[in-house]
Each structure stands twice: as C-alpha cells, then as structure tokens.
C-alpha cells in the first residue's frame, strides 16, 4: 500500500533519518578502504613503485574526502533533528585558532597564500565545546585559503570585544556576490563563483558552523565584496 501523502515536515524528517542511517552504514566500509590504502602505502605488504604510491595516495585522499563529507552529513542531520551535542569546557579560542593556522600553513603555501595570525594577549577563556569550535575555525580558515585566487592573503585575528571573544578571518579571495549573501549559510548552498573554482564542496560547512556558534551562545556573520575578499567573524560570550 502506498504511503499516505507526507507533509513537508515529515518528508524533511524522513530525508534526515535516511541520510543519517546511510551515512553511518557508509562509515564502516570506508574505514576498511582507508585502512587498506594506509597499509599498502606504508609498505607493510612489500615495496610499491612511485606510480603505485601516487595512485594509492590519490585514492586515500579521495576516501578521506568521503569520510569528511559523511561527517558533515551526519552533523547536518543532528542539527536538523535538534540532536547536536556540545560538551562545554573553559577554552582558549586564541590557542585553538593558532592550532588551525599551524595545521593549514602548508596548504596555504601550496596555494601561494600568505596566512598569518594576530592574537591579543591574556585573552579570557570561554565555555564552549573545543572540538566543535575548532571545526568552525578550521572551516572558515580553510575556505579563506581555498577560495583565494592568485597570490592571496589570509589574516586570522582573535581579540576581546567587550563581553565577547571576537574571531575574524579576512581574505583577499573571490568574495561573495550580492545575490548570494542571504543564502551563504543555507544547507547545501554553494555560490556559482565558489562552485566554478572548487566544484567538490558539499555546501554544509557554513551551515554547520552557524549552528555550532549559535548553539554555543554566539553569533556568526560576514562582510564581503565580490572580487575583493571576505571577512568571516564570530563572537562568543566570555563566561
């Protein structure tokens, strides 16, 4: 017997549930594929040629991207279902930002982009989920580097602003068109200039980042001029 006509809300809920189940089911075989490739690349099963290494490394990169996408889909499902969990503890946002910048410096160099960080001294801690806020900062800084064109500059800054900690990430990248500005935090949305430059994104990073910052009691926003660059910022209350 066919299902009764579902309401829009029921349909969304079903899509969310199916996404969540499929994503979980995909993680196990992907963990196996990733582990197999790592074993082959480590030379554990014998020497491999330069060409074999190149192909295996590409396959590993591909599986890591799939794992990242699945994580984002699961995060988005949890957000949609109101199940996103945060485990808060006193956190130094400046130290988190520094870790992200250190991790992405090689990626920035490969993209011919100068990445720097300015931290105000003696910043107070904020009570947030450090893992989740690290994810937000990684996403913003990674985007800033990724959407640079030519020789770019990305400046990360963390400072105190009244009762808040203010994080900002300013780039000289492609910027956001006027028509895209009100959709940039929407689920799965990717602006045409972004899709043209990097076709393989999921359109979930900013959606997830916004949900994390808001659930942490903060705000996230951006200023941008198309063709000149963007500054993404978020603030979190000092507690």
């Amino acid at each position, binding site marked *: 017997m066919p299902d009764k006509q579902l309401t829009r809300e029921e349909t969304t809920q079903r899509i969310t549930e199916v996404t969540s189940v499929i994503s979980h089911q995909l993680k*196990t075989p992907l963990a196996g594929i990733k582990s197999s490739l790592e074993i082959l690349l480590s030379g554990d099963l014998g020497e491999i040629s330069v060409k074999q290494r190149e192909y295996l490394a590409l396959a590993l990169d591909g599986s890591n991207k799939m794992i990242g996408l699945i994580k984002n889909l699961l995060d988005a499902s949890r957000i949609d279902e109101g199940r996103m969990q945060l*485990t808060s503890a006193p956190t130094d946002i400046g130290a988190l930002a520094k870790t992200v910048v250190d991790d992405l410096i090689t990626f920035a160099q490969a993209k011919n982009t100068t990445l720097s960080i300015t931290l105000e001294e003696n910043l107070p801690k904020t009570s947030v989920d450090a893992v989740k806020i690290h994810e937000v900062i990684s996403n913003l800084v990674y985007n800033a580097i990724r959407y640079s064109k030519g020789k770019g500059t990305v400046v990360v800054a963390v400072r105190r602003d009244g009762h808040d900690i203010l994080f900002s990430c300013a780039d000289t990248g492609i910027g956001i068109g006027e028509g895209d500005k009100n959709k940039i935090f929407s689920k799965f949305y990717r602006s045409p200039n972004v899709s043209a430059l990097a076709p393989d994104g999921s359109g979930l990073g900013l959606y997830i980042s916004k949900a994390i910052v808001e659930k942490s009691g903060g705000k996230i926003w951006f200023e941008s001029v198309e063709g000149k660059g963007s500054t993404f910022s978020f603030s979190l209350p000092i507690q």
Partner: protein
Amino acid sequence: MADQKKILIIEDDKFLLKLYSDKLSREGFLVSMAISGEEGLGKVKQEKPDLVLLDVILPQKNGFDILGALKLDPETKDVPVVMLTNLGQESDIKTGLDLGAADYLVKTDFSITKLPEVVRKHIAIHGAAKNPISS
C-alpha cells in the same frame, strides 16, 4: 615466543576484522577474534588476553555493555580495553571512558598504521600499574 602478547579483537565487520588482525599478527601479536558481544565476553574470560580491542555496534550485546560487564567482573576488570568504533560523538567517547576504557579510537579518524603502537602503549601502562617499581 614466550612474551608474545595476546590481543582479542571483538568486531563484527569481517573486512575490518581481517585488516586489524593481519596488522597485529604481522607486528608479532597473537590475535584472537570474536564477531559478537557474547562470544567476545566468553573469550575474554577463557583466553585472558593482554588487551581487548572492542567495537560498539555489535550483535547481541553492544560494546558498552561488554565493557561494563568486563569492568564489573573481578576476573576481567584489569584487562585493558581499547574501544575501536565509528561512534565518535563526544557523548559516546565519554561513555566509553567513564566505563573504564583505556582509550577510545574512532575508526575513520584513526590510522591503522598506529594501531600496534597504541596497543603496545596500553599493555605497557597496564604492566607498569600491575608491577610498580618500588623506590
């Protein structure tokens, strides 16, 4: 080999079970396997492994139930258990560690090449706790 360490892997996915067991065997460990919670629990008691690698989503009994049962039993409570699962939410990790897991690894985030190192580390920590050097 007299000091060959025994590892019990409780994992229901045969692909992963083979990868983990082959990797540890190549590194000189004696590996035993179980593909369900009940089987795993029985094997810990029978075989007295030096360390257990434990998945969470398993048929019959889940990994957290097994961990809880192992930590309650005086015969098995001191066997170090490393969780190796795809449940990576903060709350899952907290549950595992609160129940007494020695470590909590998320399969998709963790490199299998590091597995022998982690296993050796926890066996060493456990050995040091069991036989403290008196000053």
